[in-house]
């Protein structure tokens, strides 16, 4: 194993040893996904579903 591969493997091992919350907070793209998904589901999709269920006046 080359030195480069060794250090990469050590890096991965270190990552695995990090607590879950730290790994979550160190992952900007997972945070980006969560930051878009949560308000999209609870605010926009839920809101639109309610609005579309309002009966249309005759």
């Amino acid at each position, binding site marked *: 194993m080359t030195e480069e591969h060794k250090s990469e493997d050590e890096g991965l091992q270190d990552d695995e040893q990090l607590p879950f*919350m*730290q790994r*979550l*907070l*160190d992952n*900007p*793209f997972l*945070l*980006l996904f*969560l*930051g*878009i998904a*949560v*308000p*999209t589901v*609870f*605010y*926009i999709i*839920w*809101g*639109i579903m*309610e*609005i579309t269920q*309002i009966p249309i006046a005759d």
Partner: protein
Amino acid sequence: MSTKTEFRTCPTTGLKVDLNAEKLIKANAVAAVIFLAIGGLFGLLVALTRWPEVHLLPADWFYLALTAHGFDVLLVWIIFFEMAVLYFASAVLLNSRIAGPRWAWTGFGLMLAGALITNIVVLQGGSSVMFTSYVPLKAEPGFYLGIILFAVGALIGCCVFFGTLVVARRERTYKGSIPLVTFGALTAAIIAVFTIASGAIILIPTLLWSIGLVSHIDPLLYKTIWWAMGHSSQQINVSAHVAIWYAIAAITFGARPLSEKVSRTAFLMYILFLQLASAHHLLAEPGLSSEWKIFNTSYAMYLAVLGSMVHGMTVPGSIEAAQRARGLTKGMFEWLRKAPWGNPAFAGMFMSLVFFGFIGGISGVVMGTEQINLIMHNTLYVPGHFHGTVVAGTTLAFMAITYYLVPLVFRREIMFMKLARLQPYLFGIGAAGISVFMMGAGTLGVSRRHWDMQFADAILPFDYPSAAFLMMGLNGMFAVLAAVGGIAFIVVVVGSVFFGRKLGVDEKPSYPEVPPQAAVVAEHGSAHSLKIPGTTMLVAIFFIAFVLYYFVNWKYLSEVWPLS
């Protein structure tokens, strides 16, 4: 425009600065300040019209000025400055080159073009639909087009920020986790992406509707999705200004956060829940269920409020810990008494923190409670609240960090230092007064977005209580004070940037004097001290004020609807 990567080392903080990033920070900050001046002028005209004794503008000009004021200060000033913050927090704090500088300039160009188009269209007079532009109020197509272009430009800026995070990690320009200030900027960028996407979902069809290609936009659907943009755009501010609080604490005192874990978790609360507070604008809409309203405001929003309260404790707490480590340990408040109150960056930041918490924060929770929201929904209380968050909170914090940006990034000495020392107090007290008196008038029932509270030409007469007139007079006076503070800021910043003494390559500016530990702004790590009795006392005062004000509003509601 060069895209070749060149660096310089800041002689004050020791940070490595990519010159491309530096130019982008300068351009965005300058554009921000120009639009602050324009939007602030319109704001003064609005306040002088709402002052019953002055009643400056005729109705059509009032609504035009209100539209331009909302767009220029709530969106343009703030987002341009946030772009500067994103580039600073990524490239500069991570010692990295900026990713895709050409893309960043393209984004800047789109934002500038969009802002100019919307301003020109508003000034032509056919688009006085106010910032919210609720359908069926129809503006000229250019109004929506300008906002869309501005949003696309801002989205490109966010992508450059994320790209820079990737570049910095791949090129190992920092060790471990990103610094807390960068994490705060990341939070702002994430909320910005949601905000811009929501804006695109609703404003593109609205543009087509204004052209005539779409026949109908449902008003409630518009309002619901628009607020996902309109309110969330203000949550970008909250995340950015909290990041700036931490940055100023670090640069001024060498303060580390009390606990990185706790502060980062508080930012996570923002990422997950802060945008949901948009629902408080819809609490009086009959088409949406109480479940949707209460979940989005009174449950999820409180988790985001918890995040703000954590920051409200850890920022002054980190300053107290740093001051106590320097030996300012006498009594509960020696650390605060002997803080550099003559340093405009610190003074502005600390007032921003206090006003944001006590005025904007508490009133935000009150408005987010479905029952008591009804006593002030769509009254002047709402702009009172967001002047507490966006003006006394965000704008004051952005002004504060500008006093560091000018010498450290623009490499110019600050001019008119005596005026600069006074400026945060003029603007901060003015903005706080505007917020408090508008909220007071709103509590007495004064409508928002109304040209004439005297209803002089109404067929059916209506009189507000005389105290409401007093409130609006005081609001006008404090608006003048805030305008004086705003003009002082423009004079100091524009004067310094264009005419301030240019600093040599390795020359340290005479202001700011920073401690050797200031470089902690670019590091990840905690203060490891919880001896903060003074901050604990301040937090206790905050909670007492919170509980009392909350109780007063329930009491007021019970008097509106006497059920017993």
